[in-house]
């Protein structure tokens, strides 16, 4: 799917973007108000939504909330430069990544591509199509990359696509530290900017959704100055399903 939806009330900018992104091989639909934007986003016809969080009347967050309530479509926020609060709130609400305005259009394309890349099964990309996606099981969590489904003690867990990829990377390296820069590259498809809290916010979401503890230990440990670590379960036989 090459369809991108851009929700921004700046009509001229949308025209320019449509022009530019089309030349980059993407198909662009635009919406200029929150109501129509949310409607279109929930249609399921798009691979990605680019949402200006600064829509008039703080409706940017309303749109994000509505989209998240009904769809897992990846959302890239356009934020105000220097506004950390909006950025973090948006990430916590389920946006995949953000880009401050004014942005470099090349950067926008790079991020769009990174997000779309992430949605495709990683192993198929790496090892070629046809190979069955290998399920990852660590402790009480079971992750299926092919179906993009996560089960915890048999019950499905609702994760956004970026949270899913983040969890996959951490689980595959369970028991070992993964550097923040590495996580950004794998999960967000880009370098971390200074004071970029994106990865930290997504880790917080994971902790909240899966639970902070795994047995007696912290599920996802913060290793100061380095990155994050998903705890190795205490005894593979004790917790849930044994590794296949």
């Amino acid at each position, binding site marked *: 799917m090459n369809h991108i939806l851009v929700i921004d009330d*700046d009509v*001229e*900018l949308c025209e*320019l*973007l449509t*022009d*530019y992104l089309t*030349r980059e091989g993407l198909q662009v639909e635009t919406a200029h108000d929150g109501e129509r934007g949310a409607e279109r986003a929930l249609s399921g016809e798009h691979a990605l939504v680019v949402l200006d969080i*600064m829509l008039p009347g703080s409706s940017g967050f309303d749109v994000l909330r509505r989209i998240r309530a009904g769809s897992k479509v990846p959302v890239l926020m356009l934020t*105000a*430069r*220097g*506004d*950390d609060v909006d950025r973090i709130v948006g990430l916590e609400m389920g946006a995949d990544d953000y880009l401050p*305005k*004014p*942005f*470099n*259009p*090349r950067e926008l394309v790079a991020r769009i591509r990174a997000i779309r890349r992430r949605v495709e099964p990683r192993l198929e990309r790496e090892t070629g199509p046809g190979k069955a996606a290998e399920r990852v099981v660590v402790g009480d969590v079971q992750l299926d990359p092919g179906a993009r489904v996560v089960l915890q003690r048999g019950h499905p867990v609702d994760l956004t696509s970026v949270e899913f990829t983040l969890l996959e990377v951490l689980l595959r390296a369970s028991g070992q530290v993964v550097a923040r820069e590495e996580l950004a590259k794998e999960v967000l498809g880009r370098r971390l900017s*200074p*004071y970029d809290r994106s990865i930290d916010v997504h880790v917080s979401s994971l902790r909240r959704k899966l639970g902070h503890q795994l047995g007696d230990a912290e599920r996802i440990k913060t290793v100061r*100055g380095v990155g994050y670590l998903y705890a190795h379960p205490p005894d593979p036989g004790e917790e849930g399903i044994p590794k296949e």
Partner: protein
Amino acid sequence: MRSLFLKIFLWFWLATILSGLTLFVIAVATQSGPIAEQRRRGAEQARHLMGQTLALYGQSAAAILERDGHAALEDYAKLIERTTDIHVVLLLRRNEILSDRGAPPEARTLAARAAEHGKAEVASAGESLLFAQPILGPGETQYVVVGEMPRPPGRPRGGVQPLDGGGEPPPPTPGLPSRLFGEFAHFTRDFSVPSLVTLIIGGMVCLGLAWHLTAPIRRLRTAAQRLARGDLTARVGTGRSRGRDEVAALGHDFDLMAERIEALVIAQQQLLRDISHELRSPLARLNVALELTRQRSGPEAGGSLDRIEREAERLNDLIGRLLTLTQLESGGEWIKRGPVSLRGLVESIASDANFEAQTRNRAVHAVVEEEITIHGSEEMLRQGIENVVRNAVRYTAEHTQVDITVSRRRAGSGDAAIIRIRDRGPGVPEHALPRLFLPFYRVADARDRQTGGTGIGLAITERAVRLHDGIVTATNAPDGGLIVEIVLPVA
């Protein structure tokens, strides 16, 4: 807070004690009051009893005299004296003295007065008390009998002094102080328990009152302190809307003021956000238009387009800094504050700056001697420190390192965090040093354009540091390069 509370408490206690003492002194001086009353009643009773006794005696004495004569009367009188305290000194029939047994001169006059008034009279004569009682003897004759009694203890010395309130005014009594002293002994004996009870109960009531009065003041202080720290939602509230008094009104006024401040700050922040949005929208469009042009044009246009891109970026950067400076200049006090770890902040700034510096053959190295926590705005401090570091990287010579050190200075008046950024560049001319932190000030135009400075970064630093009650100074290092020192008080 305790001082006001204690003041009220002690003043009330003092009032209680003072009024008690004053009443005591007045009572003693004027012979009014409970003590004197008590005594008067006692005297009253004694006199009544005395009168009864004398009347009885008088009746018997008159009868004996009539029947048995003077000798028998004398025997009778002696008998009375042996069995009681009463010493009968005079017996009169009408004005005729029938028996005189050593009566003092005052007795005669007293008897005359008693006969005249028709009722008992008392007087003091020297050491003893004279009591004259008129009686109706046999045959309806009027007799007066005068008896002498030893003075009851405690009565003040003095001359003739009627106790029934009639007659001459009392002569001046000797020395109030000596009387007070004498009375005080009685006072403490009789009134110590009631006084103690009064003081204790009074004390507890004062405690309650003082507490009740100072509680709303304490609440007001708390709200004011919260507001000053940046919590714009701080209010006194109506609490137990018991008070319509002045303090409650003050609290109400405070709430109005806080509301106004909150509204102003919010409006101003919104204004800055709107300005930012309005200024940056054209830039956003410009960027996309630029890339479109790049897509459509050949490589020869690349250089010019790069130039345009750079200038657009500079414009964006300038807008950002100006908005930050504006925000700090007016309304910087209201930016949210919290605990900021200097180690985390400086190490993070250093590692990012180092990354960028490496691409230009320079380096940044930070040494944080100990962890220090500052109460302030992480964002403001970050920008302030980062601007200095960026400048340092910009000016330090190729293949050199910018050193950042963070240390703690201990002093009696309070500890301070010292952040030193030292570069190995050309330094700054002495005359320019004090003006370095002014907005748009540049040491040398040409050099700054080359290195990309805008002249606002250090102004932001100065303002941000000042909002944290700190000081920033720049000096030239003896062996070349500039040292910028930021001193921040530690809460």
